[in-house]
């Protein structure tokens, strides 16, 4: 029973993670992670976009090219 509960909890966490990745909820966190990784590699200071700026920027990028098929 306990092992099933552990399995269910892990599965839920995994599912929630995938859902957030697929639908874009995690996009800002991914962006920050990328930015910090780049900063570590190049040693330069960074000024990340705010969540709102990042959201608007990502929409502008996504909807200025074909991103949906027929």
């Amino acid at each position, binding site marked *: 029973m306990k092992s099933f509960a552990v399995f269910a909890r892990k599965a839920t966490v995994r599912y929630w993670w995938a859902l957030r990745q697929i639908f874009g909820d995690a996009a*800002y966190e991914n962006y920050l992670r990328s930015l910090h*990784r780049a900063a570590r590699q190049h040693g330069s200071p960074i000024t990340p976009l705010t969540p709102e700026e990042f959201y608007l920027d990502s929409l502008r990028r996504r909807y200025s090219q074909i991103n949906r098929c*027929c």
Partner: protein
Amino acid sequence: MWAAVALAGAAGLAAIAFERDEPLNATWFIVAAACTYLVAYRFYSAFIAAKVLALDPTRATPGERLDDGRDFVPTNKWVLLGHHFAAIAGPGPLVGPTLAAQFGYLPGTLWLIVGAVLGGCVQDFVILFCSMRRDGKSLGQMAREEVSRRGGFIAQLAVLAIMVILLAVVGLVVVNALKASPWGMFTLSMTVPIAMFMGVYLRFWRPGRVIEASAIGVALILLDVATGQWVANSPSWAHAFSFSAPGLAISLIIYGFAASALPVWLLLAPRDYLSAFIKVGAVFALAGGILLVRPVVQMPALSRFADGTGPVFAGKIFPFCFITIACGAVSGFHALISSGTSPKMIMNEAHARLVGYGAMLMESFVGVMAMVAACALSPGVYFAMNSPPAIVGGTAESAAQTISGWGYALAPQTMTDLAHMVGEQTLLNRTGGAPSLAVGMAQIFSHTIGGPHLMALWYHFAIMFEALFILTVLDAGTRVGRFMVQDLLGHVSKPLGRAGWYPGILFSSALITGAWGYFLYQGVLDPLGGINSLWPLFGIANQLLAAVALVVATTILLKMGKRKYLWVTLIPAVALVTVTMTASYEKIFSPDPHLGFLAAANQMAAQIASGAVPAGRLAETARLIFNQRLDAVVTGTLALMILVLVVEAIYEWVRIWTSSGAPVLHEAPYVRTQWQVETRAVEGDG
């Protein structure tokens, strides 16, 4: 184990192909499709990955090398599979198979399965690979660099043409689904304020919290579908939400213009999120419903309309089945997605196989389910819904008489009862495929949950689901089309090309909306329902783009020195060029006025000349003649463009083949990945 899967697939295909004595259960379709896909993925895609493309897991992808957290984002392969599938799966794999069901279930189903495995998946996979090796370059850029400058220009023009026709035809599907349907119209109208609420929520209150906002949006939409019944039952509200087809077309054109010019965060993006959620939910629900209900397919394997005299659209199985079903089998539009965002998000080269080949298999499966849902209807009902009034008449009696005369039994009361059951005034002449698919889905859903009492609710849920993501295609397509027009106008006038200059935005929005709006309105006025001419035109344009993609892919393979494996892309390319050229020729020059644009125009011109057209209808007939000739010119131009590209490509192939030096391949240089290389071999990955 793989032998067992292959045997099961062969048994499924044999049942679909040869079973004639007893009604066929939908389970056979699922078994045939799923097993064929599994075998194709395991062996054919592995062969392409290892031998043809030689995917290299040690090579850093653009996602790794250029990672900026915005465009280039290395992404988990399963997440990217979800992204890519959501991007490629639109209304096409639902509508195309539904229309092609007029030939019977066999031709369309076989084309969906075989076309996807040998053509569509290969195209998506190879183009994804080519773009990934070129830092995510678009199909147009690759055509310019690898084939010729003219080839690149043709690809860009083909994309613009396909956008215009696509937007018109999907708009027409929505018009035919919602005309004189207050419930459906109310439901869809309410999605606009719901999407705007979500837009404000995501922009100001909780930036980027897409799941949260979408969950609220989906709940509101479900409430909206239920409320629609009350609207339909209230005479004054029903009147307010009852639109004629021309009225609805004009509303859509105005809407498309507004959606293109409004800030993207307000309407387009939240509608896209809503649509994605509902699309994924509805597709899984349909799959689950078919597995649970296992409906019996009532359509024959081959209908009498295999001879080309079909009421849904004219033309024989070859080439028109292959034109009608594009998405779900082979779709050129996918090449734009495969050379768009997806190649910039691949984490490891080996993942291209799962994302490119695997996502297309999933879309093909959606197409097979749509075919099952359409063929689960009785053929009489299917033809009554999908035939225009010019062929079966506008009353239940005339439709029943005509369709029964074709050998498909239909009582007039059947259509009246069915319309009553789904809460519509009529289901006759609902061309376009969406309403018949919605009835098929509603039957499957209501067998699972709620029984006949919920049939009306399920029908309007299905209509809302189809219309919602068709409108998303319309919004997003108009906006992208606007950018393309601005790009072209920028060569003429610099300010018109500036993305931020508002007069330029309005002007280019008006141009692109006017272009697809013209074709949409033309379709609405067409006495044969519009789908008859517009859907084949869309199919031709889409398959031409697929031919462009496969020709570009063949050129790249040749430059890579893969002469032995050229057949992988060359065979589908030759097949598509043959299909599209034959279809284009027949659509332009066929002497049958139901099929040939010029024959139809000439027939109407002769009617005017002989005085058979009343004075009051002269202007309308003259407009129809112009439209038929315009369609002929558009088809001819598209065919000519592909011919030029094919000739350019053949010239390039001969040059490469006969040249002693190594051809110039425009790949990004090899950089070894800094991440831990996946130890699994390419063949076993995924």
